[in-house]
């Protein structure tokens, strides 16, 4: 159960992160960096992994999770 809960938390954490930094919101360019349209979570995960030079798996693996938990700038990463 605990690992299931942890997995669910990680999933929501990743979802929120991808929404914030890898999803276009329109309006004033704040960092501009958003992917065009609403790509699937897997695609956004791959964009994140490519941006940070991680192994591009599209899966929420440990290195990706660790990167997501690092304090960072609020400007999105991926340019459209």
């Amino acid at each position: 159960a605990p690992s299931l809960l942890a997995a669910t938390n990680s999933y929501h954490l990743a979802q929120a992160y991808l929404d914030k930094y890898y999803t276009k919101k329109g309006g004033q360019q704040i960092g501009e960096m958003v992917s065009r349209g609403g790509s699937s979570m897997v695609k956004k995960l791959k964009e994140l992994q490519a941006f940070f030079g991680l192994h591009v798996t599209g899966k929420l693996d440990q290195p990706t999770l660790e990167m997501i938990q690092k304090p960072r700038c609020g400007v999105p990463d991926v340019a459209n």
Partner: protein
Amino acid sequence: YRLFPGEPKWKKNTLTYRISKYTPSLSAAAVDAAVEMALCAWSSAVPLTFVRTDVGEADIMVSFETGDHGDSYPFDGPRGTLAHAFAPGEGLGGDTHFDNAETWTLGMNGFNLFTVAAHEFGHALGLAHSTDPSALMYPTYKYQSPYGFQLPKDDVRGIQALYGPRRTFLGKPTVPHIPPHGPSTPEHCDSSTSFDAVTMLGKELLFFRDRIFWRRQVHQPLGVRPSTTTSSFPQLMANVDAAYQVAERGTAYFFKGPHYWVTRGFQMQGPPQTIYDFGFPRSVQRIDAALHLQEAQRTLFFVGDEHYSYDEKKRKMEKDYPKNTEEEFSGVNGQIDAAVELNGYIYFFSGPKSFKYDTEKEDVVGVVKSSSWIGC
């Protein structure tokens, strides 16, 4: 590095900034200094000038915000998102927000404000995130000390792609070329030479101008060598307004805008402090010159055509000041740029002239070119 799509950039070289809201976790002076040093990090690489304003709308509005603060990018409490900034443009463009929920610091115990501000101002000038982990514009936080900070190559390439290089990229200590052979006139000699500040430091005499300083022995004007301020005083990051030394204490004070740094020799003693510690009124935003009178144990601070007197023993400003400088020091005309006491005389520097003032005769007893002090 990456630029924002459409490559938005500022169409002018002088940008205003204003800190409209502060944070409880740092003093206003510390925030001011960190912001100023963060902007200096960029202006050392490109021909941009940043002018601070305290009223109205500035190009870059800087504020500490909490949670949803009205720009559709709400902050998320401690850690997570630390700050964000908007690409160059009208209105919100260039504005920079820091999450008030974070613990901001000038050191390492918390999030270093200089580090995050330098990153965010990269966005405010037109840089997006870099994929280079060594770049300042990499998205995740990595502590950088403001002392001796050098803009990483990736960021220099990015910002110069937008604004071109600064005439002399001051990020690296570049010493102006001095002809190899002897006493020919060094390049730094021109009749209009003036100084921003002059002070004793230990046994040496230091002359500051823009981002360069010359050091020499008191009795030996030849063999004077220029250095960049940042190479020996990395914290100062830019030019110096005034400086003085209290030899008995072995401490020197360097002033820039409303801040000052204390050093022992070339060693900085902690972060910048506010000049209002000396008892200046808030109307004073910067000091033109500082002169320590060893015997009287007083320091005179020159601001415009007036001067204040600070009692170094009691550590407080003397009453009945400010006084008019020309009335007090007859024969010394023009605004005082720098001053230093040597061998019982006071030397005032005003533009290209240097006045030798005899305190007993209470009059000027000599006038020479300022540049003659650095071997010209």
